[in-house]
């Protein structure tokens, strides 16, 4: 069931304002002509260039070394090449047979800005930035009323304009990677729950995919479908909560309560399925912990039947809201170039026009057996990230429905002596299973020597898991390269030059969760 077109596009009335330059009128400022950083000269530079506001260990502002000749990002490179490459990539995805029904039609109706246009827009919105001015330092300290975890950003403000940002993370560092080295692969799974604690299963799943790749283990089809279903439920929960938090950051707490109310339906499903609302620990090496319980399918179908309608209603409220449009349009533009440079993936990258979704590009679990579209928008601002996430909610419901419809029979956990935990019922009755259980719990699985890296599409972006094994049952090195770590690092590039009130909106739109960031 695809929503009608009018829900994909903002109303015409709002689109008419799209062509005009972003709001520069209310910014009444006195400056002499000499010190104005004119946007004309900056049209081809982005936030990475220019001398840093402060240096000497006070903040990370990257210096651009002389770029080697022929580099992809040298200013001398023909932008048309970059644009053409991206347009080709976007077209390839839009027309691929993954099912691009409404997608191609919907986006053809709206003009897609080129990379140059986006960069010019960005330069205009950040045109008030002056580097060498008197600044007031304000700390957006580790305690936030707006629920982004314990992230600290020291802002240098010149009036309303943010001149520099120095982020500080680490308040939630729990040493997950060190802990992983002392635990068997099975014991690491509950640790991964606490990474992005808002989508616990997605983290479990990512780790299990990496471990199974290392062991060369095949997961049975039923387990793959259940994993896909659960990951998409995680994505639903995450995006619905994101919507509530984002709108709450912009002003109203009503939406937050409403969205959390709807998230409760998904969390109830998780409780039914895994026994826990947030820290699922449901994936196992080789499958999942349990099969779908009785009544789960019926309840799940009820939820995914009514949730898209609810979300469509919220989307309609927010998308056509004039105030939201003014606060989110052309705010926080982060072009695809910036996204590559700062390793920003997930919805912000897709909002910049790059149709990169690991579920399609490097499929895992049952994603190559289900039919869905990649949500792509082209304006790379907060508004488009919102649209992308709303579309992803709809697509998640589609995927879940397909998983439920096509759920193959079979085992939910691979019966592999050397790699998987046996089903508990068998352990108490079958001696082979008892031996397997003993072996797996005390020694861990049989893993070949080697290293592997596997990235999956977590709700917040690409989560990569690197595992190096020396043949023991515990890994020698595990590295989680989580999306929020890089998104938190990209905050200066995202926000410098914008106004203070936009900082909260932009920060919310890149979806940083400190569990993910600090590990």
């Amino acid at each position, binding site marked *: 069931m695809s929503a009608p077109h009018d829900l994909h596009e903002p109303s015409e009335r709002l689109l008419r304002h799209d062509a005009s330059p972003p*709001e520069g*009128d*209310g*910014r*009444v400022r006195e400056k002499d002509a000499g010190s104005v950083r004119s946007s004309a000269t900056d049209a081809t530079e982005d936030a990475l260039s220019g001398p840093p506001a402060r240096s000497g260990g006070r903040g990370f502002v990257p210096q651009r070394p002389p770029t080697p000749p022929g580099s992809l990002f040298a200013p001398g490179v023909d932008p048309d090449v970059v644009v053409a490459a991206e347009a080709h990539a976007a077209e390839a995805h839009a027309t691929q047979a993954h099912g691009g029904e409404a997608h191609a039609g919907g986006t053809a109706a709206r003009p897609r800005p080129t990379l140059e246009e986006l960069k010019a827009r960005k330069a205009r919105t950040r045109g008030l930035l002056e580097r060498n001015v008197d600044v*007031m330092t*304000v700390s*957006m300290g580790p305690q936030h*009323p*707006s629920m982004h975890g314990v992230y600290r950003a020291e*802002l240098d403000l010149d009036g*309303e304009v943010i001149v520099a940002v120095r982020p500080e993370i680490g308040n939630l560092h729990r040493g997950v990677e060190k802990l992983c080295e002392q635990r068997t692969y099975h014991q690491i799974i509950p640790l991964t729950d606490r990474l992005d604690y808002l989508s616990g299963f997605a983290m479990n799943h990512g780790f299990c995919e990496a471990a199974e790749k290392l062991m060369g283990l095949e997961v049975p089809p039923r387990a793959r479908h259940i994993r896909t279903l659960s990951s998409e439920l995680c994505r639903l929960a995450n995006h619905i909560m994101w919507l509530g938090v984002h*709108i*709450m*950051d*912009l*002003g*109203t*707490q*009503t*939406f*937050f*309560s*409403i969205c959390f*109310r709807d998230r409760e339906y998904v969390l109830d499903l998780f409780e039914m399925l895994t026994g826990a609302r947030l820290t699922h620990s449901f994936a196992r090496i080789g499958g999942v912990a349990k099969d779908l319980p009785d009544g789960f399918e019926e309840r799940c179908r009820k939820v995914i039947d009514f949730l898209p309608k609810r979300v469509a209603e919220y989307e309609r409220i927010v998308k056509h*809201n004039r*105030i*939201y449009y*003014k*606060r989110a349009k052309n705010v926080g533009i982060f072009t695809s170039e910036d996204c590559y440079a700062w390793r920003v993936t997930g919805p912000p990258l897709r909002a910049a026009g790059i149709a990169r979704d690991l579920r399609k590009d490097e499929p895992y679990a049952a994603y190559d057996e289900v039919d869905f579209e990649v949500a792509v928008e082209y304006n790379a601002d907060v508004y488009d990230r919102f649209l992308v996430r709303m579309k992803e909610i709809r697509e998640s419901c589609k995927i879940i429905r397909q998983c439920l419809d096509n759920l193959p029979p079979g085992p939910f956990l691979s019966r592999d002596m050397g790699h998987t935990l046996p089903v508990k019922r068998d352990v108490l009755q079958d001696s082979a299973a008892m031996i397997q259980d003993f072996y797996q719990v005390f020694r861990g699985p049989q893993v070949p020597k080697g290293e592997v890296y596997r990235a999956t599409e977590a709700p917040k972006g690409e989560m990569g898991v690197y595992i190096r094994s020396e043949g023991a049952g515990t890994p020698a090195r595990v590295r989680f390269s989580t999306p929020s770590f890089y998104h938190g690092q990209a905050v200066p590039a995202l926000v410098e030059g914008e*106004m*203070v*009130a*936009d900082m*909260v909106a932009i920060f919310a739109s890149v979806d940083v969760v400190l569990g993910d960031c600090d590990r």
Partner: protein
Amino acid sequence: MSDPVAQLIFLIVKAILMPVLIITFVAFVIYFERKFAGFFAGRVGPTYLGPWGSLQSFGDIIKLLSKEDVTPLRADKLVFKMAPYIAFIPVFAVIAVLPFGPVGGGPNLFGHRFDYVIANFDAGVVLLLAMGALSVYGVVLAGWSSNSNYSLLGGLRAGAQMISYELAMGFSVVGVVLMAGSLNFVDIVNGQAGNFWEWYFIPQVVGGLVFFIASIAELNRTPFDLAEAEQELVAGHLTEYSGMRWGMFYFAEYVNLVVISAIVSTLYFGGWRAPLTVLDFIPGPIWLFLKMIAFIFLYMWVRWTIIRYRYNQLMSIGWKVLLPLSLANLVVTAIVVSLQG
């Protein structure tokens, strides 16, 4: 009992009764805000204290009184302590000139005339605008005296916002004044005699709308509450206030809300007049109360539904949209009134 003594007694009674009633009402308005917020969000709001949680405000007062009084070390103590009162007393003072029932006419109480207004003041509208301006001081001084970066920033932003929107408010009110021919609130209400289609909200629809929106900015409520937005960096000018001092600011905000609702009802919706003359037998104060409740609900509805504007967008709305509209309203009203003789 001679008339001056009776009038004096009535005055004392009114002067004591009105503030007490308003303050008690405000306690329940705070409760209603939280209840409505809950209902709008699919929750239930306070339910614990009292029937349906109605005594929540009193519980909050007791809690706030029992908190430690924290004053910043280098704050200007006198100003810091006076600021909440400067924020609320001026607007509260406007109650003195608002009529809540018929004024003038023959004896109606124990053989003496009981006027339903504390002070029949000939420059009531001027007092309204002046007091609105004074209350800005409370906010700005709170921010400044806290000796903190954030508070200063918040206080200045709030102050600038309130001043900008007061202009639009002032000009819209002048439209009403032109129609009534007097700055006295009593005359303004008397000029809206008759049924509800003769009230000023129809001819002054533009002015009324501008006044309503500008008053939301005066009250520092969403969508114009950037100065005290919790989700922005800090709590603005209220950052350093805790315990009962903060309670006083919170209280002041709701007193302002109640008084501004009363003012809106008086200026545009007939004050204590019944919507249909056949319903005149219901006393004036009841009608004013009902209209106040309606506006209070409207302010709350707006607050819990709309997201807030960014500061530059807020200022541009105040100066570039509301002010020209109210001026246009004023010009048109002046022309029409003078043409009508």
